[in-house]
């Protein structure tokens, strides 16, 4: 039987054996698609169609199809970009930072969270390319040697730093995610019945045999990639925030943006992970792996980062007053009382008040309340980026340029379309890839020496590998296998 600690909640409930883990997770990959998945994919594909149409309109007719004007050069495009990149940060934090902090509870959520990161970064990357007036010349940003005397890009520009940051982030996340998937692909390959399945998963698992050497390398690479990814959690959104912080626009030009944005990113990222995991665990019957404890822990991280964001809001207000810079002061008065006050109010209620509810145990252990909270936080964080971008731009230094922004149908179409893109990719991931890292979950299950951890227990999958009749001589029932062994006693 699984050994259950007397001092903490088990990370995997239900007395699962290793075989159970394999069965539960591979079942979703191997079974035919169920009707709910088909329905969800259908809706996502429709939204993806909206995306393609909106992109066609934008590319064929021009950025004039959006609601932008001479005063407000960025609105929904960059709001959505920052929103999606922010969402991606939770996956990297769970995969990398929690690995380095040895938080074993990350094992059941890290793969889906990292997948969420990769798909979120794909959606985010759409916007810097699409928002360009001439996206077919996007390669101008790459510092490649050329025949124009080698005309380089402008390394002073935060938009260029974005190019490096986002591409690095995407590459590293993809590699990290993929190396974690290799052992699980091998498991599916070994169980695969159909020819196509066997071939595809053989290719994907790249000859993984599960030997000790392979596992040793797996652990090492995971640690190295975790070490590389951890600084990215902080640096990528710092660079995204520099898009605003290094400008002269009042309301943008504040040094608090880097930590504020990073905290906000993790905040919105965990909200999205919660949204996705709460649905996945029910639909895929994975409640024993993504337990209430996991939900509560993610809620707590969401609350901490949400509180940091709240403190940042207050600091911005204070500094606007303290600096006595009239433009900065007006920027904040305008946010709270001007024509976009409703966006500001949404941002404040959703982001400052709602995460504080997590202090209540009833809230953080409640599936329904957590789900509602996570949706509210995501909406609030979208409004935060909208408020920062649009309210600062629409009324800046010279009042003669003050203007209003309203989105066009194409603006909305591109945004809704990227949501469709995200969910299409995520649903395909959930169907064809194991959503939980089987190998790592097995590594956090604890078994006593007596009741072998392989195929024993209530769900016998095959023959017993250890016999009950001859228990190991130095074993005591109920003592975990990791207990120190006194070899001296044997020689008595």
């Amino acid at each position: 039987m699984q050994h259950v600690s007397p001092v903490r909640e088990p990370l995997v409930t239900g007395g699962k054996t290793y075989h159970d883990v394999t069965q539960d997770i591979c079942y979703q990959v191997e079974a035919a698609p169920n009707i709910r998945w088909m329905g969800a994919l259908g809706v996502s594909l429709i939204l993806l169609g909206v995306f393609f149409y909106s992109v066609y309109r934008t590319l064929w007719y021009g950025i004039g199809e959006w609601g932008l004007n001479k005063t407000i050069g960025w609105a929904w495009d960059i709001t959505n970009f920052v929103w999606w990149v922010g969402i991606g940060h939770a996956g990297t934090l769970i995969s990398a930072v929690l690995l380095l902090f040895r938080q074993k509870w990350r094992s059941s959520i890290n793969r889906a969270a990292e997948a969420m990161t990769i798909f979120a970064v794909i959606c985010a990357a759409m916007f810097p390319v699409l928002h360009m007036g001439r996206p077919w010349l996007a390669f101008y940003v790459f510092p490649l040697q050329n025949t124009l005397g080698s005309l380089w890009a402008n390394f002073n520009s935060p938009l260029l730093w974005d190019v490096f940051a986002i591409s690095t982030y995407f590459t590293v996340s993809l590699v990290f995610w993929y190396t974690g998937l290799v052992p699980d692909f091998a498991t599916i390959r070994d169980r695969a019945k159909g020819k196509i399945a066997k071939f595809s998963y053989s290719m994907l698992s790249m000859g993984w045999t599960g030997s000790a050497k392979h596992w040793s390398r797996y652990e090492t690479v995971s640690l190295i990639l975790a070490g590389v990814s951890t600084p990215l959690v902080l640096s990528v959104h710092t660079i995204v925030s520099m898009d605003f912080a290094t400008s002269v626009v009042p309301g943008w030009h504040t040094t608090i943006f880097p930590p504020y944005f990073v905290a906000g990113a993790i905040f919105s990222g965990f909200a999205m992970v919660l949204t996705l995991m709460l649905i996945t665990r029910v639909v895929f019957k994975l409640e024993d792996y993504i337990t209430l404890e996991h939900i509560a822990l993610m809620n707590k991280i969401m609350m901490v980062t949400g509180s940091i964001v709240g403190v940042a809001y207050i600091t911005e207000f204070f500094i606007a007053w303290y600096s006595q810079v009239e433009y900065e002061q007006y920027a904040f008065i305008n946010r709270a009382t001007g024509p976009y006050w409703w966006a500001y109010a949404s941002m404040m209620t959703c982001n400052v008040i709602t995460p504080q509810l997590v202090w209540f145990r009833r809230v953080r252990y409640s599936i329904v309340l957590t789900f509602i909270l996570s949706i509210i936080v995501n909406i609030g964080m979208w409004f935060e980026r909208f408020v920062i971008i649009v309210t600062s731009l629409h009324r800046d230094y010279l009042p003669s340029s003050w203007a209003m922004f309203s989105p066009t149908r194409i603006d909305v179409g591109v945004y809704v379309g990227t949501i469709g893109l995200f969910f299409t990719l995520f649903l395909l991931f959930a169907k064809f890839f194991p959503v939980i890292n089987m190998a790592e979950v097995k590594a956090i299950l604890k078994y006593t020496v007596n009741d072998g951890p392989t195929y024993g227990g209530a769900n016998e999958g095959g023959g017993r590998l250890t016999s009950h009749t001859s228990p190991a001589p130095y074993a005591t029932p109920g003592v975990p296998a990791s207990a120190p062994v006194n070899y001296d006693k044997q020689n008595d």
Partner: protein
Amino acid sequence: MDRHEVVQENTLAKYQKNPKEVTEYELIATPDGLEKPNKVSLWQDYQYNDHHWGMAIDLNSCIGCGSCVIGCQTENNIAVVGKQQVINRREMHWMRIDRYYSSNHHEDEFEKNGKLKTYAEMEDPSDNPQVIFQPMMCQHCNHAPCETVCPVLATTHSSEGLNQMTYNRCVGTRYCANNCPYKVRRFNWFSYYSNEKFEDVNGHMFTDLGRMVLNPDVTVRARGVMEKCSMCVQRIQLGKLEAKKQKRRPKDGEIVTACAQSCPTEAILFGDMRDPSSRLSQLLRREDGERAFHVLDSINVQPNITYLTKIRNGSAEFFPAEENA
């Protein structure tokens, strides 16, 4: 709110009393005392060894007729975008005339009503307001906020003080426009010369005959590209070339920008600030510390365009209270 560094005016009585006090200059508090913003800078300044083009705009002389705007449009092949796009705040004019109206309310009311309420009331002009017209175009800042943020270096600084715009390099991220505090940059939202939506209003760019109206020295910008006042660089280059062909330097007054040429009251003066004998240099020397100011001086972008404070006729030292209109 308090934006006195955007536009300045004062009365004749004050000017006659002490010309050095008609303009409020921004000073930054430093450990060495109050300094002008250009003394507090981390940037290395550009060296101008040959020409340093600049402009002075006299707010006294500007009557807001708009000839400069139209002159600029004609000279630089600027598209006409039509009524709907103008309502959407997407006009392409490189220059604009900003109008600042007087209000019945005054700073004296801060004590009684509080700052916020008084500023809110000041946003409504008087029924019969006084106006200041301020032509606003690219200020050709020496510390241009647009130049640092373009990812592809489509906007750069020339060795003669101009902020250059390289249309062919621009990929249209619009960061430069967002970062411009004067909001003088214009983006080509559509293809104004081939999108049939604009055939009615911009028809001259659609037909071969119509295109003969365009200035052949200036390109027509493509969709997705940023544009702005170039200080008629084509005229500057032509003037320099003609002078070079005659083996001499360009004389002051030979090179004139389209806006300066169109202005009926000669409110706009273009010239070489490096040439001490040019009319512009003489004017700036005379008005330095008196009527000459830069718009938004405190952000220290160091524009090459200087404005001259408007002086109103009147014997009073302060503005008269409005009579019932």
